[in-house]
């Protein structure tokens, strides 16, 4: 990866990415969808956010350097620019490879008042991981997040595209069991859903 961000000449901006340096992995469908998404905006740059969601789906839930480079290449942007965007937003998994399922526990005001800390402590004990960590079998990632804006259902959690709440410890355990048996990664599924809702019916 590092050769992609080396400067072509001193004091110059990074060189444009070249196809021969990249291992492009987008599926045919992914490329078509990206083209449809690009058509929603007056320029390609505006498609960076949707493009990253698409890459998150295509690359199995993790935006590796290769994934970011592919988005940058397909949108004619520099690597550093796209990486900068990817690392700003909390829902892009650009820094750590997440587990198969990401459990996002809301610990913000209302959930805080309604016992989110107990739920969090329960998860920490049960899974043996803390905020931002992934279990050694790669099954779960735990994350403490800010308000999910479903405070009427506090304490609330998000897993993939779904909200759950109010959740108690027993329901949490049941959910973990269900997730363990789920074939598909809810992280990838979530990215797929985000891409899908941005496309019109005739564009899919």
């Amino acid at each position: 990866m590092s050769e992609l961000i080396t400067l072509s000449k001193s004091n110059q901006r990074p060189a444009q990415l070249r196809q021969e340096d990249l291992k492009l992995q987008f599926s045919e469908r992914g490329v078509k969808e990206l083209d449809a998404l690009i058509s929603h905006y007056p320029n390609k740059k505006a498609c960076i956010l949707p493009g990253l969601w698409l890459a998150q789906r295509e690359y199995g839930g993790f935006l590796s350097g290769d994934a970011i480079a592919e988005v940058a290449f397909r949108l004619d942007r520099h690597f550093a620019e796209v990486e900068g965007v990817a690392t700003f937003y909390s829902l892009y998994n650009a820094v750590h490879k997440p587990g198969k399922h990401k459990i996002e526990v809301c610990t913000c005001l209302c959930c805080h008042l309604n016992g989110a800390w107990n739920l969090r402590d329960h998860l920490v004990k049960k899974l043996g991981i803390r905020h931002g960590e992934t279990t050694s079998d790669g099954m779960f990632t735990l994350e403490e997040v800010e308000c999910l804006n479903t405070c009427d259902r506090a304490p609330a959690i998000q897993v993939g595209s779904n909200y759950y709440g109010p959740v108690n410890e027993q329901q949490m355990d049941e959910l973990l069991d269900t997730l363990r048996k789920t074939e598909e990664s809810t992280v990838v599924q979530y990215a797929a859903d985000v891409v899908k809702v941005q496309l019109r019916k005739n564009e899919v």
Partner: protein
Amino acid sequence: MSRLDSAVIGLGRSKLPFSMAEYKLLLEHSKDPTFRTLDGYKAKGGYTALTKALTMERSAIVDSVKAAGLRGRGGAGAPAFLKWGGMPKEKKTNHYLICNADEGEPGTFKDKELLENCPFLLIEGMTIGGFAVQGDVGYIYIRAEYMDGAKAVRNALDEAYAANLLGKDILGSGLNFDIEIHMGAGSYECGEETALMSSLMGERGMPRLKFPSAPFPVVSGVFEKPTLIHNVESYSNMPFIVNNGAEWFASLGASTKNSRGTKIFSVSGHVNKPGNYEVEFGTPLRELLELAGGIRGGKLKACIPGGSSVPVITAEDVDRAILGYEEMGEVKSMVGSGGCMFFNEHTDMVKLAWRSALFYANESCGKCTPCREGTRWMVQILERICRGDGRPGDVELLKQVASQIDGRSFCPLGDAAAWPVLAAIRVFPQEFEYFVEHGKSMVDSIPSLIGVP
């Protein structure tokens, strides 16, 4: 009638809080699943407003926004007319519309319900807007967590396109208007309108210069083109204004100084029936609490009436507060985004201030120093106090840091971080002093409130 009588009646009408129940305008059919489909929406009178609007003069629609007295529901409560009227009358370039559905203010979940259950209200409202200000494309910026809402809007958009209610030559009127969904990726700051535009243009969600350092969005907004940006609830009011007339709309909330129509409040915290309640402006805050089934787990202690960014008020103030933009100022708080949280007597205000400060520290975009450093500093001080290691003078220091952020940051997120902390210290100073002095809370918290990491 004697003069005395009429004076008494006059007084009764304006001063004494009178009883009002829920007033369901936007949420009237929110429990009806067919309302999410085009047929069901039309059966309830949907799209009559757009049909009517398309026969009206553009300027007449803009005037009715003014006459209706609609104010933005996104938080600041700015008159919507300023934006509608500010859009260029003569079209020289593309015009854009944006719907701000990046609801992230802790305590607020009204847009979520509107997106999930009444997507057509938003789409019809935006299309009316597209006609009135000659828009080409409308973007609905939805936070990525709101998948249910986004799916409902997607289905609604697809149905609208199929029925020629969007796209080319809408209903044979010659109007071309597209609506696209743009999903966020997890950032509260992207709710701020200029940051949202940065994010929509494919950048980090950082705010841009505002007037007077830069032109208003209606002159140069997203993609440097004239842009009309509103909250979901603001647009969703448009079908009612067009259909029922501006005068009718302005008669709602007429008891208040300058707030018209209805407002959806998301009630949560220690209440028996948390949820969204739509009331007319001018309703006493107390009644909102009663609608939500009253307080649970003890007596009422405090309330944050408009989302975490607005100052906290005491139980006494809850009794006299009237829901209205100016009226809430009398109890030194705001309507904000309508995220109304009630707290019972076991709530520790110091920990609440800590949690609120932590939210802003986590969500600060990092562009300007007062907010980036100040929010972190506030968290450090509050964390120290909550651990029992508070030092003498910490409360003073906290006040000082907060007031250095307030008014000195690049965007209102900094102010929003400072206000709740300053208000908590102003309203409950004894709790802070006690915590610093004794190293423990003055309130006997129920166990679920204790855990501080």
